[in-house]
């Protein structure tokens, strides 16, 4: 039995659900929007074994029977069912405690969890994660974080191109530095900002699931391919891409080394075949890549969850 957690219509969850349906693997849904009809409890007995139950609208599941759990949770504080509730409402608290019970169980559950919360934390700081990525044999772009404009200008002089983006996991649009940016560079005195050398090459998104690897080449002239239409007026083109065995292995090792079961790894392969790793996304929206290429990522995920 698999446990799927999130909002069932959200594409990454919907795709893995379809894959499980196709293969006849039984699953239960932790539908966040139906929190009011769910109850969950777990206990830790002496020796550290973990057990418990999840009840969904009268159906009772033993937590020990879940062989895999896929977590794709939205922020429960902004669910439509509670967003108009006062901060101290009983309904809001009930919703929060249910989610907390789920995530706490997932941290210690002796089953396949995609992904546990703790190892996902490396994505909260890009330069921190870059230091971890280096330990797995990848190059990372030269990076400067500073509040001093003069250091940025010197950094610019030493590189053909420079981009800037958020330090944290908060989503930002990667931008190339231009002369116009120089005029407002002194503003970084208020908050240290991250600058990176621009690396020429082809973007490759690699999804790893256990030992399985799906690589997608992304063709675009945009600095941030997620916003290609906005930046260059045309959407990025995505195609399946075959990674060399050594690189596949490095990606799998990186994912496992970060404590993750499933990851979206952002690579750039330069014309002289150097491989830079920019980021490891621990909760990838893989459906975008699957729908553009037909790569069976959801099927791979379902297979992993089923323990195959």
């Amino acid at each position: 039995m698999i446990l799927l957690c999130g909002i069932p219509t959200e594409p990454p969850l919907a795709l893995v659900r379809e894959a499980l349906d196709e293969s006849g693997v039984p699953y239960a849904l932790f539908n966040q929007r139906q929190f009011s009809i769910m109850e969950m409890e777990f206990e830790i007995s002496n020796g550290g074994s973990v057990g418990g139950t999840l009840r969904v609208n009268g159906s009772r599941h033993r937590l020990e029977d879940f062989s895999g759990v896929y977590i794709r949770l939205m922020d429960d504080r902004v669910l439509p069912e509670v967003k108009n509730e006062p901060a101290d409402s009983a309904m809001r608290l009930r919703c929060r405690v249910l989610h907390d019970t789920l995530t706490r169980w997932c941290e210690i559950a002796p089953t396949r969890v995609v992904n546990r919360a703790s190892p996902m934390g490396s994505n909260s700081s890009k330069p921190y994660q870059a230091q971890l990525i280096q330990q797995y044999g990848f190059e990372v772009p030269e990076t400067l974080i500073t509040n001093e404009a003069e250091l940025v200008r010197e950094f610019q002089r030493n590189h053909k191109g420079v981009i800037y983006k958020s330090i944290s996991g908060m989503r930002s649009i990667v931008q190339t530095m231009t002369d116009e940016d120089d005029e407002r560079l002194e503003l970084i005195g208020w908050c240290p900002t991250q600058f990176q050398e621009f690396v020429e090459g082809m973007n490759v998104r690699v999804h790893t699931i256990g030992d399985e690897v799906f690589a997608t080449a992304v063709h675009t002239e945009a600095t941030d391919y997620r916003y290609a239409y906005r930046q260059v007026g045309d959407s990025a083109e995505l195609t399946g891409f075959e990674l060399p065995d050594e690189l596949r292995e490095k990606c799998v090792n990186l994912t496992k080394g970060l404590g993750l079961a499933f990851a979206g790894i952002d690579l750039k392969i330069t014309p002289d075949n150097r491989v830079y790793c920019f980021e490891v996304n621990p909760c990838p929206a893989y459906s975008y890549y699957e729908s553009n290429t037909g790569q069976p990522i959801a099927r791979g995920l379902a297979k992993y969850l089923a323990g195959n």
Partner: protein
Amino acid sequence: MWLVLCSANDISAQWAYQGLKRRGLDPLEMIYAEALPFSLSWEHRVTADGASINLTLPDGRLIEGGSIKGALNRLIAVPSLQVAHSPDGEYATQEFSALFLSWLYALPGRVINRATPQGLCGQWRQISEWVWLASRAGLPVPAFKQSSNDLINEAVIERRLFPMGTPTRTLIVINGTVCGANVPDVIRDGCARLSELAGTALLGVEFAQRSDSEWLFASAMPMPDMRYGGEELLDRLASILLGEQEQWQEPTARVSPDSLKSRSSLSTGASL
């Protein structure tokens, strides 16, 4: 140069600072969390040669990464009042937090405790995780149950194993050794094992003690009141930071449920 990184109101860190100075760590710089966001200059780089940090503190002190030999790190949060009320306050707060995690992780030398995403001075865990780890470490733990019907707002109230006011004793583990006398071997070994499993070199372990002979795990934390460890702890901290303890190996978390026995027997058996 050695660093003591802490909040200005961290009495325990002040105590350790004085004790370490007496033991010959010189120069030893005390850096307050409250001052760090106002640093005059931040320069944190990640290059092919690794990560580096140079910063100029508001009082003019220059902290160059290359000259740091070690640090006692007691930072728990990044003060963000200077940006919290600006239009991009939430974004700026996240940016400062991400920067702090990275530069603290990049500190050279021996760092007690090195920053993690779950805590700037070591991994903070929910009580359910500590109970699970303590149990695996062989410590006596009380029964633990968490339910969606508990209706405890953990943003306001800490989930506890014992009611406030229960008599407790705190032991300090440093680099695999428990400081203090009159501790049963099973507790001493369990605490050392817990520190190892948690990947936390300096760990406080609290026990409920309703009698002298009762030891029941109550909580653990990576930023304990170090005064419980007494002069023995200061000796050990100084020895580690001065490089005298050859056995020092920076810990990493050893146990997650994924490292336990494969659950392949639970496979649904369905073909995909």
